[in-house]
């Protein structure tokens, strides 16, 4: 019975010109978005790989110079673009993709395409994630709003119910038929995505579990819209009312909630402007964290302590290079300042993120956004993780160079020079993204809100079919 109803529903809908038109458009958009996303992923990855290798080459080819000068020369690092970013580029355009490492300074991750783009781009970017999060639900609403209400108005519901069909079987059959029709839209893009992951080689092998989790998340999300549409269609006074209610639900989720969440988060947990932030760090380093320990005083104290430690009277008598010690001490003081300020900043950001996650219980679209970006590896948490990992590498690199100056440059002061062997012996940066387990763990709230929405909406469907009105 269920299959028979599903088959008729699928057959009926697939002969509808409006469905064919809109399905073709959405399927085309989805395929285009996937193809474009994939192409740009490949391009960007190739560029990053080349730029990263070049930056390292330049670093290695510096020739003879003081190690501290080499630390100033610096190195560019690039945030590896995860394979699934072709589905969802996430916040990458806003948080940046590359960072310049150098002595004394912790630079922001930069190179943010969104900074150069007009506000129009916010709406205009075609991504598979946007199609799945915004357009597919709209299509579901348009397909499903007349499912019960429309049949009620046409009078076919009376006849179907006069045959002794169980209302729950009717609605379940419709849900299945609609699901089939919708799956048909997703099939071309899905096949393309799978093909792309297969072709991408070993790097993508690691992302299969992520892709599976991502697919599950989107299936649940779209299931919520389908169930809500069927329930509203069964409960509404007329199909017009059903359409208005469902469009309202869609607008609130797809249009209002994301902006609302961003503004609310910004108000609830304010973050300093980039200028204020940099200024606070600069003054803390110059005047000391408590404001009463200026740089010169710290240097003087370090000198006294170092001389006392080695039991000598002057810097020249030291068995080590004092410049190396002083530079590293300055570095470490700076690092403590960075930790303080960045710690507070990240805390604010994660406060904003968790506020948004809680709002996901009110708006499922927020939950899927979080889930999608996190599994694609393009969310705020990943940007944070990369920034921290790059900073840790910067500290190791600068420390190793200062150490060389301290140990080997004993009597030469700033005249000491090291060569390419030293540059080449510096560690190579490899970013290790967090494991799937850790990512899923951080998405607990998003999963729960999607699951609760699914349970609530399917529960509403059951409730609405218990006493289905025929007219």
């Amino acid at each position, binding site marked *: *019975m269920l299959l*028979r*109803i599903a088959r*008729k529903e699928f*057959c*009926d*809908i697939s*002969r*509808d010109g409006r469905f064919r038109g809109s399905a073709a458009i959405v399927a085309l958009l989805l395929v285009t978005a996937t193809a474009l996303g994939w192409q740009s992923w490949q391009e960007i990855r190739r560029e990053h790989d080349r730029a990263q290798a070049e930056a390292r080459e330049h670093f290695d080819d510096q020739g003879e110079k003081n190690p501290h000068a080499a630390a100033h020369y610096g190195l560019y690092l690039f945030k590896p673009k995860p394979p699934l970013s072709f589905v969802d580029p996430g916040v990458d355009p806003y948080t940046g993709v590359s960072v310049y490492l150098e002595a004394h300074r912790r630079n922001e991750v930069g190179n943010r395409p969104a900074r150069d783009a007009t506000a129009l781009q916010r709406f205009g970017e075609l991504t598979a994630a946007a199609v799945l999060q915004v357009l597919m639900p709209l299509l579901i609403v348009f397909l499903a709003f007349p499912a019960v209400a429309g049949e009620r108005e*046409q*009078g*076919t519901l*009376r*006849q*179907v*119910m*006069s*045959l*002794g*069909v*169980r209302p729950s079987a009717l609605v379940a059959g419709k849900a299945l038929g609609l699901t089939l029709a919708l799956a048909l839209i997703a099939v071309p893009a899905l096949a393309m995505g799978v093909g792309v992951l297969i072709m991408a080689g070993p790097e993508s092998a690691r992302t299969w579990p992520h892709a599976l989790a991502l697919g599950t998340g989107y299936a649940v999300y779209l299931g919520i819209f389908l169930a809500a549409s069927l329930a509203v269609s069964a409960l509404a006074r007329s199909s017009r009312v059903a359409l208005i209610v469902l469009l309202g639900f869609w607008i609130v989720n797809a249009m209002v909630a994301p902006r609302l969440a961003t503004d609310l988060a910004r108000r609830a947990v304010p973050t300093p402007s980039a200028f204020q932030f940099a200024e606070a760090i600069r003054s803390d380093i110059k005047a000391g964290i408590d404001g009463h320990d200026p740089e010169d005083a710290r240097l003087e104290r370090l000198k006294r302590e170092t001389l006392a430690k080695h039991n000598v009277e002057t810097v020249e008598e030291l068995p080590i290079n004092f410049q190396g010690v002083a530079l590293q001490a300055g570095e470490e003081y700076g690092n403590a300042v960075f930790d303080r300020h960045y710690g507070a900043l990240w805390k604010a950001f994660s406060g904003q993120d968790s506020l948004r996650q809680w709002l996901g219980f009110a708006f499922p679209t927020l939950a899927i956004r979080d889930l999608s970006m996190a599994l694609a590896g393009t969310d705020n948490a990943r940007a944070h993780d990369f920034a921290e990992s790059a900073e840790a590498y910067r500290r190791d690199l600068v420390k190793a160079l200062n150490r060389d100056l301290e140990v080997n440059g004993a009597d030469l002061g700033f005249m000491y020079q090291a060569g390419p062997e030293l540059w080449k012996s510096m560690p190579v940066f490899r970013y290790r993204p967090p494991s799937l387990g850790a990512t899923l763990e951080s998405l607990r709230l998003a999963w729960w809100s999607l699951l609760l929405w699914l349970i609530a909406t399917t529960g509403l469907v059951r409730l609405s079919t218990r006493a289905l009105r*025929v*007219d």
Partner: protein
Amino acid sequence: MLEARSLTKTYNGFTALDSLDLTVGEGEIFCLLGANGAGKTTTINLFLNFIAPTSGSVTIRGLDVVANPLETKRYVAYIPETVMLYKNLTGLENLAYFAALAGHDSYSTAELRGFLEQSGLPNEAAERRVGTYSKGMRQKVGIAIALAKHAESLLLDEPTSGLDPKASNEFANLLRTLRDRGVAVLMATHDLFHAKETGTRVGIMKRGRMVASLETDEVGHADLERIYLQHMHD
């Protein structure tokens, strides 16, 4: 087969049906006559359990329809004033779907065509989408559904209103054939002439009450019309 006992339905104080007693046995065609709002459609809706009775009982084959909403529907077929079909499907597909929902999923295409033929639907129309059908053709698909269901009783709600005389006549002939097979028919209608011609009994309804019930054999056309009008004028 079809039985109503002191059946009453009120909506917010308005009495749509007032203690109706009615029995339609095998091979009987009971015609409910009356103006709009007399309670004819309410009676049929109660038999289909689309609405719940305020008091009294409705049974089909001795089974209470409120207690057995799914089972009692297996024995009846319902044809409304305009049979509504899925316009994107052909007549044949519509019939196959409705028959399957009624529990008859195993008909071959030839058998389904046979039902449409018996109902008088032109052969070429069976493969056309229903969107192009006239009202008469839809009614014929409705009859084919009833035939395919092998229903023991029919609930008809003004099935011939708006049909041309020829189609109306064909419909009456089909009803007679079904009656002869022992089907019990309850039909709401405005058509005194056909009620007299095809019905075995007629009940005249007014403001929710059945004010008269007669055997059609015992009255002539003119008598029936006179009695009907008399009741309407009171």
